[in-house]
Structures are given as structure tokens and as C-alpha cells.
């Protein structure tokens, strides 16, 4: 919990190492947040000195996997912000339902809870069979978890409440089977998902989508990087497609925001 053990210069040294040695660019991440993640990991793994920490991150490939997983925030939830999912259910997905084929990108999908929430909505609207959900993340190990579609059982009560609040009417437990401490979600849901690594900082557009979900990812980026990512999304959304952000994120200060129209009260924009 001590936050003063690593100073700003050391953070910069470490992040430069990570870029040079491993090719991951965190230099345009929000500084206070990334510094807190680094300090937290340093304390958690009880390194005796910053030099040792730096050396390990630089040279130990196994440890770097852990570093990547811990430095990025992978906290997520099913049906987080129920009113958002209600808007998807009532206002966005029915419009997409008029297309012959629906392509959705969940950018920064972490362990997959949002992708599975979305798949449940699509299934209930009878759209899942003509949909494809591309779920990407910078972090290969969270994708491995996401592919399995297994979430800790003790969260399911909360998820079920979220689901009902978002306008769901089914018995939520019909979507999973309890397996010891995990809930394994129906494979019909994941059959329409493609998981792949994608780094929003350095990778390019790889397809065109009618809906991009990128929620609570951009809060970790500085303004310039946010704008770069918005440009990447802009290149990846069809005309009249939708972009959905987290509840505290906004398109407002991006120069091309005029080409997008906000949907109701939610953080959903439609490309004009």
C-alpha cells in the first residue's frame, strides 16, 4: 500500500524497457493509473529493489506475462450498467437486426463477461445465429479465460440482478451450469465469438463493424491516445453503425465527434 516507493522517473524507465524489449507501448497510458498498477505489483510480488523488479520485467518472459496481466485492469462484470444494456436491447440491436449479418467488436474484452452478456441479448432477440462477436484484448491470458466462458459462481447473483434490471425476462440460470465454484456459460453463446489479441495502441483496423463496444478501456489512456483509438474505431465502423463507451467516457472532445450522434442518455453514438 505504500505508494512512494517508485517514482515517476522509474515508471518511465520501466515502461521504456517494456516497449523496447516486449513491444508493448504503455507510454500514453494515464500516468497516475499505470503508476498505481506498477507500484501495486511491485509491493505484491515483494521485490527487494526497483533494480531487481526492472531486471525481472525485462528478462523474464514468464514474469512479463504476469506483469502484462496485472498492469492492465481486467475487472469486468456481466450486464454492468443495466440501463446501458437496456438501450442495446431496445434501441440498438433491433436496428442491427434488419441487416443480413451483424458484426460486433468488443475491444478490450478482458475475461469476456461483456461478450457473453451481448451474446445473451442477441440470443433473446433471435439474432445470435446471424451475428459474429469479435472479442479482442491486449492480453493473451485473459483471452484464454474468456474463451472458456466460465465465471466465478459467487458473482452470479449480482449478474442475475443486473440482467433483470437490464430488461431480461428469462431465468438467468438457464444460461449456465454450475460447476464447483464456476458457472459455465452455454456453448451456443461462445460459438458466435472469435477471440484474438489486438493492441489498441499499435494494431490497425481489421474489419468493419456495425457495433463496437469499448467500455472502461479508454479511461486508462491519455487524451492523445484516446483520439488515436477513436480514429481507429472510426475506420472500423460502417456508416450508421454504433460505438458504445463506458459510463464515464465520452467522444465529446474528439475532433470528428460531429460525425456521430448520441443515442438518448447512454454512452452510445451512431455514425452518421
Amino acid at each position: 500500500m505504500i505508494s512512494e516507493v517508485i517514482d515517476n522517473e522509474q515508471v518511465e524507465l520501466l515502461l521504456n524497457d517494456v516497449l523496447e524489449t516486449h513491444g508493448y507501448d504503455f507510454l500514453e497510458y494515464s500516468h497516475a493509473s499505470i503508476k498505481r498498477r506498477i507500484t501495486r505489483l511491485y509491493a505484491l510480488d515483494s521485490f527487494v529493489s526497483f533494480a531487481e523488479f526492472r531486471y525481472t520485467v525485462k528478462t523474464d518472459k514468464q514474469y512479463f506475462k504476469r506483469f502484462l496481466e496485472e498492469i492492465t485492469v481486467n475487472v469486468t462484470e456481466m450486464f454492468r450498467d443495466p440501463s446501458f444494456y437496456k438501450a442495446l436491447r431496445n434501441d440498438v440491436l433491433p436496428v442491427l437486426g434488419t441487416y443480413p449479418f451483424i458484426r460486433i467488436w468488443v475491444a478490450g474484452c478482458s475475461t469476456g463477461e461483456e461478450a457473453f452478456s451481448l451474446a445473451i441479448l442477441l440470443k433473446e432477440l433471435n439474432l445470435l445465429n446471424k451475428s459474429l462477436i469479435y472479442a479482442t484484448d491486449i492480453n493473451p491470458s485473459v483471452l484464454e479465460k474468456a474463451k472458456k466462458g466460465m465465471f466465478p459462481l459467487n458473482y452470479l447473483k449480482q449478474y442475475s440482478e443486473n440482467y433483470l434490471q437490464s430488461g431480461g425476462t428469462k431465468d438467468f440460470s438457464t444460461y449456465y451450469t454450475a460447476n464447483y465454484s464456476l458457472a459455465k456459460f452455454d456453448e451456443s453463446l461462445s460459438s458466435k465469438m472469435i477471440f484474438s489479441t489486438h493492441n489498441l495502441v499499435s494494431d490497425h483496423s481489421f474489419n468493419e463493424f456495425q457495433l463496437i463496444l469499448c467500455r472502461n478501456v479508454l479511461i486508462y489512456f491519455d487524451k492523445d491516445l484516446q483520439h488515436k483509438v477513436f480514429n481507429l474505431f472510426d475506420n472500423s465502423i460502417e456508416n450508421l453503425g454504433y460505438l458504445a463507451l463506458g459510463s464515464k467516457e465520452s467522444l465529446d472532445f474528439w475532433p470528428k465527434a460531429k460525425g456521430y450522434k448520441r443515442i438518448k442518455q447512454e454512452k452510445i453514438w451512431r455514425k452518421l
Partner: protein
Amino acid sequence: MEKTVNKTSCTALIIGGSAGSLDVLLEIFPQLSQNLNFPIILVVHRKASNESLLTDLIRNRTSLLVSEAEEKELLKAGKVFIAPADYHMLIEEDHSISLDYSEKINYSRPSIDVTFQSAAEVFKSGLVCILLSGSNADGVEGLKSVNNFGGRVVIQNPNTAIMPYMPQQAVLQVQPHEVVDGHDMATYINKLNN
């Protein structure tokens, strides 16, 4: 217990509170001077679903500008910034706000520790942090950082707190500059305005 109050002026004030702190906050805000020359940041534990309720309650009791903090927003003197429910709030070197949806700290998001710690490094001796009523120890570690970076630590007198545990832990573990009764908190804050 009390250290001599140094005369460094306040550049930012953060108030952290949990259970039982709302009463104090609702008493403080109507009494605050209208032209404070520092920003006030509020970090209050509450349920994720009570989105704008706290903001509305505070807004109705002061003529200061009150808003739920937006990410990348710049802190401004005379304005009240409320850490949004279910996000941690951090302060950047350029005095802008970063939000963070990482793991809960002390079962809390927003965590008072997180905001205290990040602001301690940025504002150093210009920071004043007040810890109010509450029933867990969130904020205590943060106050230690504030002390280390030369900021001012102010704790609500536990005897005046509805839930004394949080201020009690702070008084036990951190050297406070000041222990202030709930009823006197507004006067204390107004005096920071120099």
C-alpha cells in the same frame, strides 16, 4: 498530538467519508464560503446504483459548482468534484482527473486511500485531507501518504462521528495535524481559504 499548523496555503482539499459521513457533509456545505480558492474533492462510499443522488444532495446545499467528476477533467478552484460511484479517482500531475475501474480497495470503489495517495504526491504540502465518519479503515493508508508528502491530515473527532471506527483508526495510526468536531468542520474549511 497536534502538530503546529504550517501556513502553507491549501491548493486542494479532499474529503473522504463512509457510513455516517453524509450528515456531516450536508451540514458542511451550506456553510462554506462562496469563493474558495481551492478545489474540493469528495470521495464517499456508496452503492454503485445511487448514481447522482449524492451529487444532487450536495448541489442543493451550496452555491459552489458541484459535479460528478469526469475523466480527464481539470480540477478548478471553487468547484466541488465528486468521485463517481464504482470508480476509483486519481489525480494526475497536471491536476486532471483519472478514473480507474480496478479492484475494490477495502471493499470500496471509490476508495479513499486511492485518491488520497495519488493526490498526496501531486499536491504535496498544498494538500489538505479530511477523513470523516465510517465503519471501515479506508483512508488511513492514504492519510499516511499525505503525511509523508507534507500534506495536512485532518480527522473528524471520532466522538462526534456516527460511525467512529474510521476516524478512530486514523487517529490511532496517523499523526493528525488536527482533530475537528463534525459541527466545526465548515468553519475549519473556510479558514483554509487564504
